[in-house]
């Protein structure tokens, strides 16, 4: 167990060796700064995503209406 709390945290060379031997490179917190390249959406994908977005907005209106009528 490594020290925690308010004491300064030091990472020893054995810790470094342990990390590099045990974790896959992509698991290192520092490497997660690197973005994964953006995906290009095709027409069908855009259509499905927009359809579901509109569906959600419409259904939220329905829920609000239902709450309104129930309260009334």
């Amino acid at each position, binding site marked *: 167990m*490594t020290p925690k709390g308010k004491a300064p945290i030091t990472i020893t060379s054995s810790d470094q060796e342990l990390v590099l031997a*045990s974790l896959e490179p992509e698991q290192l917190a520092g490497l997660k700064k690197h973005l994964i390249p953006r995906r290009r959406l095709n027409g069908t994908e855009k259509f499905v995503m927009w359809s579901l977005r509109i569906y959600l907005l419409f259904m939220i209106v329905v829920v609000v209406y239902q709450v309104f009528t129930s309260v009334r």
Partner: protein
Amino acid sequence: MGEGPQSRLTQQSAGQQDVVITHEDVDRAHDRVRVSAARAQRGFSSRFRLLWLLVGPGILVMLGENDGPSMISYAATGARFGIGFFIPFVILTFCMAIVVQEMTMRLGSATHRGHAELIFDRFGPFWGWFSMIDLGIGNFLTLITEFIAIRAGLGFFGVPPWIAVGSALVFLYLAVAMHRYWTWERTLLAIAIFNLIFVPVALLTHPHWHSVGHALITWMPLPGGLSQDTLIIVLADIGATVTPWMLFFQQSATVDKGLTTKDIHLGRFDTVVGAALAAIAAVATIIATAPLFAHHMSAENFQGAEFAQALQPLIGRFGAALFALGIVEAGMVASVTISISSAYAFGEVARRPHSLNLPVTQGKSFYTVLFLCATTAGAIVLIPGLPLVYVVLLVNVVAVLAMPPALVFLFMLANDREVMGNLVSPLWANILATCVVVFLTLAGLLFGISVIAPKAFAFLGGG
């Protein structure tokens, strides 16, 4: 990752890149060493140890989703419809949850990235923010209902609301105060297993097992037929098993735990076991409150504690107390998992440190978001005169409506060969996932029709 003054970091070369090794990495490396040691050994005990080390996110997400509003939804189901259609239906919803959650586990193990992070990276901020708004609103509303459940459950024992909410916040603080993913996970697992407290409660009602067996085979009866009330319960029960926060939580927890592609088969086992345990607790809750239906007791405005009070003449003070404790436990565990889900997502999107292995000094934003969400939700519950009962059922309905857009992101990511390589979803998983999306969308649309045209279901025998 942000470099706090107390995380003196060492530049080290890994491949061709200079990387920063953090305290979070060291903790995770210790966990992985134990996994590697267990995997290297042969024999039953080593296999079991490996299983023990790797289970966690799947069981936690499933038992976490058996949260306050979910258990109240199941209790309302039993009280309003008895033993019948909803018992096999709830089991079906957990099968859907397995299909969906397996994908998040596979994504996390293959990419080592959280769900929010992947959506932002692959689809860009436009779609990313849509997804985050859905998650943020859904999580916050659900958190409110967790505190409602805790307040209602502890109310059965005469605990004042402010003490109930305060205790839940202290529990949340203690749960994450260990600053170590492994310890947090094991502690919460030990508490989450108390979700099965609904099983002895169900047994105390001396259920009619023949009716349970008949319901499982025939999916009948469905008292009242298909009506708006039935659809609200259908949606609430679906929302009690599959919700957006689960996608974000299990993937982030998988990453935080450090699972890799070698662990995927046991990750699946973890998810299936979690779903089985949660389904048992859910069915037990329906069975436990079914006597209220048999006795024609109106349960429309019950919040949790009222179910316990109504059951007391039938199962005694002890049984009723177990029921109330079950509601409290469900709310407590979920308040932790949902707050953490929000904090993970925030950290992933804001590119701030986000791990339960972080000391407070290095994870200030992570812990701030976590506690801010929980404290605000807890405070709202203390506002007098709030229509809490309706909020509980409605939150599950909203969760179902938000699921199809969330599932499309998940579906596309799980089939994205550029990030998943050979671990893209097989055909059978895609067919099942498509069925889940279509089913949830249709359920939502049916609900919409029932609201706009309430008499549309009259031809099916409903009200």
